[in-house]
């Protein structure tokens, strides 16, 4: 059953209230290592938006027209991950051909994205929650924007933390996680506005 959620609400929900990173904990690995640098964070965030939107559409189509047709639902993990790897590879080649400048800014982050759990997570959520095509596009795009927003905010905060006196044991990942916790609380403040699961 496709849930009846208006695309606009789904878009806002996936960016703010059920942020893929802060509410579903996906995409943490690259999130913590890349957020040291604002410029790199921006590049990776934009790459995630692009890849997430494209893969969620393709995986939607692949699931509904190929996997369900051949009744090979149990192979969906493998199929999804292959689609993601292929999309990332093609996008990398395409960007390198079209715009070397963009490739320098964005392309180097593309290989990292194949193993970003958020991308596979979005494809799986779309399939499990039985979203329609429009909902899938909106959810994929919104989750990407949410991720980008979160990593930009964290990178900006980490710049400040670098110059603050932090206990030796808490330096690096420890304090970063606590900042992310505070950010998650801040984003939870949006949850009064709309509630979508």
């Amino acid at each position: 059953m496709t849930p009846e959620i208006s695309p606009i609400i789904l878009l806002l929900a996936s960016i703010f209230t059920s942020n893929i990173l802060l509410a579903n904990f996906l995409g943490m690995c690259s999130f913590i290592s890349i957020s040291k640098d604002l410029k790199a964070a921006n590049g990776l965030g934009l790459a995630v938006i692009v890849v997430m939107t494209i893969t969620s559409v393709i995986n939607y189509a692949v699931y509904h027209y190929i996997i369900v047709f051949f009744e090979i639902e149990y192979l969906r993990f493998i199929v999804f991950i292959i689609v993601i790897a292929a999309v990332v590879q093609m996008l990398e080649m395409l960007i390198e051909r079209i715009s070397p400048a963009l490739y320098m800014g964005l392309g180097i982050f593309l290989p990292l994205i194949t193993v970003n759990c958020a991308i596979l997570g979005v494809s799986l959520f779309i399939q499990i929650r039985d979203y329609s095509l429009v909902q899938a596009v909106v959810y994929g795009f919104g989750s990407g924007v949410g991720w980008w927003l979160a990593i930009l905010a964290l990178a900006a905060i980490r710049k400040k933390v670098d110059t603050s006196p932090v206990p030796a044991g808490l330096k690096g990942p420890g304090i970063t996680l606590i900042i992310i916790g505070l950010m998650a609380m801040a984003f939870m403040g949006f949850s009064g506005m709309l509630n979508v699961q």
Partner: protein
Amino acid sequence: MAGRVLDITKENLWTNNPIFIQILGICSALAVTSNLINTSIMSAGVIFVTGFSNLTVSVLKNIIPRKVRMIIQTLIIAFYVIIVDIFLRAFLPDISRALGAYIGLIITNCIIMGRAEAFAGSHPPLISLWDGLTSGTGYMAVLMLIAFVRELLGYGTIFGFEVFPGGKLFGLWLIFPDGFQHWIIMLMPPSAFFLLGIFIWIAKTILLKSKDNP
């Protein structure tokens, strides 16, 4: 050989714990830790997948061409994850539903890929299997710790058993006469981040101390 095995065990469980020190695989780690039963099933799945994908990668390491090894490793991992998924759906359908997408996300758990790349690619099969199993156990230990705190304070239970019963017991008032007041924050995402941050802090402080005066 025996010393080597012990070294690996100690490294993976403590001094080089995948979550505390390498900060790997927390993607799927935090989401399932709001109760102990789900956490133990999830981490058992991860231990199984890490161990056997390490074994397989190590056996096949001379056959896999270097250029395509990443995608082959991913496929090997996905193969074991599918086994876990089918097993859970057949024998523990409720937990399978509760874990939802997170079982599939074991594929992109960085610990597994990391161990396959860093250890199994250059070591013999049996020791790789052991490395995978202990890495998974190190991951499980941290997850259980977080889940223990979250379930205890969030629901007042451990593995679903009531820990703080309200009312009178043996004619004595217990600590919580009106029943346990649930800490709602513990059931929400931020608490997982805070707890992991605090546990990393404690672990790192102890490790730094023991490094200073060995």
